[in-house]
């Protein structure tokens, strides 16, 4: 009741203030209008930081996979999960709160459609979720585990690095957990602060035996997620949460695959290569057009897509041709996967190793 009243008041003030004007919007955050931040009269407008600035750039409608439907990123994920559960009777989805549809609505409707033994909640325990998922995968069934936020994946780090990644190797290929996929919302969203904004892919990039994938859009997400689920190695699929609602595209209804470990050249250019993944791809697309407009520099834009094993050939081949390579990252500046790539790229350029 009180909440409803508060929202009503805000909406009234909104109307009074008019559409643009003093109101700062969390751009791209995809939040409902009730959450607009008011700019108080008399305060310096510059004090209000633009928390997230990017414009999602949809790709053209894909024509080769049949009928498409307008979907945002979480709907594309639901579609991929729906396709997987329909095709593979052993597939199960589990994690915290997935039964009612998930905190980001990625599993809406699946429990009703496929049954409570296939889409179910687990206790609040990430190490248990991943461990349990490994066990399911060891028997050959398909396990799709959800970690509620990538920030909470760390209790499962031991299971992922010491167990999942090494299962096949240490058993001499007697056993494996290749049919395990772990999904987690990833990356900054504007209001997430310390524990709802992290991008931990660098921690896993050091670990051979797993694959780590980050999509930039709904179409990419569905195809890459389906590939992760079908891949015979344990995969971690990080979903940029800021794109869950903000990214809307035409996405094929039927299942399709986008290959793992293949980077995509989104835009061709002749002077500089820009590489990024996830949300940042859209930032660098903007940067590329600004560079062209303001500096006359022609940029090639690459979406890395799979962080490990990464597509060294595509990146290095293009870098060989160009003056330099900028690796773009919006996260923590301490050693990240970017630094590894910076180290690896010259090596492959000059020594072809």
């Amino acid at each position, binding site marked *: 009741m009180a909440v409803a009243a508060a929202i009503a008041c805000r909406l009234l003030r909104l109307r009074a203030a008019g559409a643009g004007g003093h109101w700062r919007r969390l751009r791209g955050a995809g939040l409902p209008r009730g959450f607009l931040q008011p700019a108080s009269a008399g305060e310096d407008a510059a004090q209000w930081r633009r928390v997230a600035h990017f414009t999602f750039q949809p790709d053209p409608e894909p024509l080769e996979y049949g009928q498409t439907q307008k979907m945002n990123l979480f709907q594309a994920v639901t579609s991929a999960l729906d396709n997987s559960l329909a095709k593979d009777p052993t597939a199960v989805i589990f994690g915290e709160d997935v039964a009612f549809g998930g905190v980001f609505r990625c599993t809406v409707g699946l429990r009703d459609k496929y049954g409570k033994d296939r889409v179910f909640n687990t206790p609040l*325990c990430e190490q248990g979720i991943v461990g349990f998922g490994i066990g399911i995968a060891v028997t050959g069934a398909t396990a799709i585990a959800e970690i509620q936020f990538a920030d909470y994946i760390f209790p499962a780090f031991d299971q992922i690095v*010491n167990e999942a990644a090494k299962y*096949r190797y240490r058993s001499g290929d007697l*056993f494996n957990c290749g049919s395990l996929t772990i999904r987690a919302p990833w990356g900054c969203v504007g209001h997430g602060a310390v524990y709802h904004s992290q991008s931990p892919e660098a921690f896993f990039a050091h670990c051979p035996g797993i694959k780590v994938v980050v999509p930039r859009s709904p179409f990419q997400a569905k195809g890459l997620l389906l590939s992760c689920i079908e891949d015979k190695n344990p995969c971690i699929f990080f979903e940029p949460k800021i794109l869950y609602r903000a990214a809307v595209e035409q996405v094929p209804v039927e299942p399709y695959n986008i290959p793992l470990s293949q980077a995509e050249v989104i835009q061709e250019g002749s002077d500089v290569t820009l590489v990024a993944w996830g949300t940042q791809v859209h930032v660098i697309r903007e940067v590329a057009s600004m560079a062209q407009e303001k500096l006359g520099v022609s940029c090639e834009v690459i979406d890395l897509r799979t962080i490990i094993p990464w597509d060294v050939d595509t990146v290095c081949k293009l870098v060989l041709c160009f003056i330099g390579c900028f690796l773009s990252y919006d996260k923590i500046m301490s050693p990240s996967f970017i630094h590894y790539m910076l180290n690896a790229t010259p090596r492959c350029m000059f020594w072809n190793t």
Partner: protein
Amino acid sequence: MKGQPPLSPRRGRILEGLLANMAVVTAAARVLGSSRGLGQDGLLLLRRLGVRGLAISHPQRQQQRFSSLDDKPQFPGASAEFIDKLEFIQPNVISGIPIYRVMDRQGQIINPSEDPNLPQEKVLKFYKSMTLLNTMDRILYESQRQGRISFYMTNYGEEGTHVGSAAALDNTDLVFGQYREAGVLMYRDYPLELFMAQCYGNVSDLGKGRQMPVHYGCKERHFVTISSPLATQIPQGEDAHPGPAVGAAYAAKRANANRVVICYFGEGAASEGDAHAGFNFAATLECPIIFFCRNNGYAISTPTSEQYRGDGIAARGPGYGIMSIRVDGNDVFAVYNATKEARRRAVAENQPFLIEAMTYRIGHHSTSDDSSAYRSVDEVNYWDKQDHPISRLRHYLQSRGWWDDEQEKDWRKQSRKKVMEAFEQAERKPKPNFSLLFSDVYQEMPAQLRKQQESLARHLQTYGEHYPLDHFEK
């Protein structure tokens, strides 16, 4: 209602109905001349419908005294009665959960109705598995001391826990072990050659020489490869990680496989978070799994008094809603009976079982340990001489007339000979080819790994003389 969470439509309807009922009750009370206003019945009606936080102000309500036993708790989190006496539950460690046994320390059946009455052949298989394991342990321990293998862990004193439990399972039941369960594999007829191959890391090792000794695995015998991190098998099997054991059990349940998963771990590994995770998942997700804890008194040098303060591991089971029992792990029949019943019910009822087998680790933790640094030789001798699973079973066999000293002598000679032969063969074999360093990281070998593999091959072509390439298969 200020400060109350908004009522859902369903509760809103209940509230309307309730107010109507209360109006009737109040009216009836007035007519009947009761001066108690709403009355007990009205309140009972209220409680039964479970509506929270109704701030009904009635002038006479404050004067009522309600016995706390009249109203039942409505909390979703527990089904229990109210109590109005402040009392902490005392953890009972003085006389904890009793220890089930069938034989006494001299191998005599205590209660004939608990005797599983197994046929002679089967009991002899128990005995031979335990003693063969013991012989293999002695020889491989020595071989480490002589520098022939890098590391070894013995199973002295715990053979009963392995064999009793393995015998109670079906051969297709999936086993997730920790690292001190070689007897399970021995009972499942894992050849000595393969035990040795893994310890030597030679070309016959199914694990391709990648792990330290005693990290056995066998797909055919449904024994998942051992990993070093403790408790990690528990959520899986739902191994030192129980989670995976639980996951496997869940998948078996979905597949209607009529299969149970058994997950072994020590009392030390039970302290890991993964154990807690595994127990909780198994119970909430109703998995057919047996959690088998070998409580052998020590986690390397850490005695149980420093590992836990509660009543061992068995007492934790009920906290998770898990059927639990504590057994004498040195009594192979007790272990057998408990595991057999747990298996039957786990599959029939889709629920987990926890068996805590009390035993004693007679040997050192491993070849890297010297346990005289933290325990007395007398203590070890007691268990070796007075309460050993092999001796107790031998007494039982002898009292049944199924075994005698002559057979004992012959068997000792025979088993030693078998082990020595396998041992000598294993020593002669080369190690796996070095290119196997790079395979199986992923199902397919990625380009980067292939480049590293080729790079190593080129390096060895040029500098091969600095490496012991003769020991490796070409």
